[in-house]
């Protein structure tokens, strides 16, 4: 295995780690910048995904739509204070190496409400396509496939 292959792997680990700390540390304003301008971001259930139903609970066809999601959460929508904690595991490169990579990883999200109540809010997999933009890898496509068809109460903070 070449040093380049190793470096690539660690760059991707870094990308996934940075992404979840951004969300878990409530730095939502940084979040759209993990995506390409023409990105496709979608949160759906395994049930929809496997039935080829196109619906997204969150469905963005541009980085601007991600920015709007953030500003709505900051200015418009009302939801109880809460925070996520992401655990990410088992990242794999599924396609051919190159400047565009297909990736999959498992995740688990624990949601904690202001009163301290903790629940396993989401579990599933990221099905991603990343593209190199200069020094950084960015998500051209991120499909968040939730194992469960159920959402507890509401889905405010993105996944």
């Amino acid at each position: 295995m070449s040093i380049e292959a190793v470096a690539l792997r660690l760059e991707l680990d870094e990308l996934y780690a940075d992404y979840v700390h951004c969300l878990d540390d409530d730095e939502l304003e940084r979040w759209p910048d993990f995506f390409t301008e023409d990105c496709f971001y979608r949160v759906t259930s395994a049930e929809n995904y496997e039935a080829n139903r196109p619906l997204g609970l969150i469905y963005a066809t541009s980085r601007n739509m991600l920015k709007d999601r953030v500003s709505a959460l900051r200015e418009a929508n009302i939801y109880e204070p809460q925070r996520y904690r992401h655990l990410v595991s088992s990242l794999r490169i599924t396609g051919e190496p190159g400047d565009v990579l297909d990736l999959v990883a498992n995740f688990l999200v624990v949601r904690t409400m202001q009163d301290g109540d903790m629940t396993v809010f989401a579990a599933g997999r990221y099905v991603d396509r990343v593209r190199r933009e200069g020094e950084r890898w960015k998500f051209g496509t991120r499909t968040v496939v939730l194992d469960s068809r159920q959402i507890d109460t509401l889905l405010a903070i993105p996944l």
Partner: protein
Amino acid sequence: MEQQPMLEWPAEGNLRVPYRVFADPEIYRAELARIFLGPTWQFLTLAGELPQPGDYLTTFLGETPVIVTRGHDGELHAMVNRCAHRGNLVCLKQRGHADNLTCVYHAWRYDLAGNLDSVAFRRGIAGKGGMPASFALEQHGLKQLRVDRFGDLVFGTLSPEAPPLGDYIGNLIGSRIHRVLHGTPKILGTTSQILHNNWKLYFENVRDTYHATLLHSFFTTFRMSRLTAEGGVDIAENGAHHASYTRNKVDRVDAATSDRLYAGMPSMHENFRLADPGFLAMREEFGDDTTTQILSLFPNFVLQQIQNSIALRVVLPKGPDKTELQWIYLGFAEDDAEMTALRLAQANLVGPAGYVSMEDGAVGNFIQRAIRGSEQDCSVLEMGGAGHVSEANRTTEASVRSFWHCYRPLMGL
């Protein structure tokens, strides 16, 4: 106990709702029996979900599990999902295809209409065991529901007293269903939300025309469904069903007046702008100028049209303080690619993460928590007066009052 009232309803009638009805386990159990297993029609599925004979799916009447099938006769059938032998679930999967319904526990076999066809080893083996001669297959079928269709919507009831479905829905509300479902429904996707509150708190919310622009900033800020626009609420005669509507392009007052009326409302964010507002634009579709229509059928069905976003919602009780809200997002087989793309983009408005529905998933739980220790107090339903009939106005709680007007006699309250 089922006969005497479980609580004393206040003298103000529909103007007051005792908080106990949202928390009391005894009232909840009575609702399951008197409403969900009582003389009401409840949504089961879209007919198109069961295209072939042998197709089946499972759902609920209240908490009672139900099977819906397409019989070999091509007809739709529904039965309680409980084996007549020892009560096992006959269908374990949420959907499937089968020539008959065979219980996994002892292999009793039912036809697709729920009639008992055969009992494993009914005659015993080598002269030993088996069922007694007195055992009659026809006395041990699955409990069958009445099933009827309204367009592509399939409803069921366990009650012989329920009026025919068409009469149950009525023309006033029925025509508003047809208005929205003008094509061949195509499911874009589904989801469900677990609400930590009593089912009625969500159903009140759906029928509450007063809250939309006060709770949901998008409606207010982007002038989507302001109370200052033309609109109103249609209410079925017995109060059971409702349809609220906004004709957004027709203002009742000029924009300046509207802005003044909303000025200072917490939901009004003058300076809030979108970087990519394209998805908010409505495409002409329904041949009228109604931009939003929220429709409910007693006790637990909702049909929503917000711009071009169409969804069915089913409200399933899971306990006194737990509710499952199922979402079925629709398009039509006739949609072009652009319309499908628009519906998918506008799906951002609704559902668990919806810009104008996210709050509705939480507010019921806020109330559930707030009324702890105040079960003897009451909510106040005086907006728009005391009526529970149709109005050309949405600054009213008429359709919330009408829910209770229908609920109380069924419950003997």
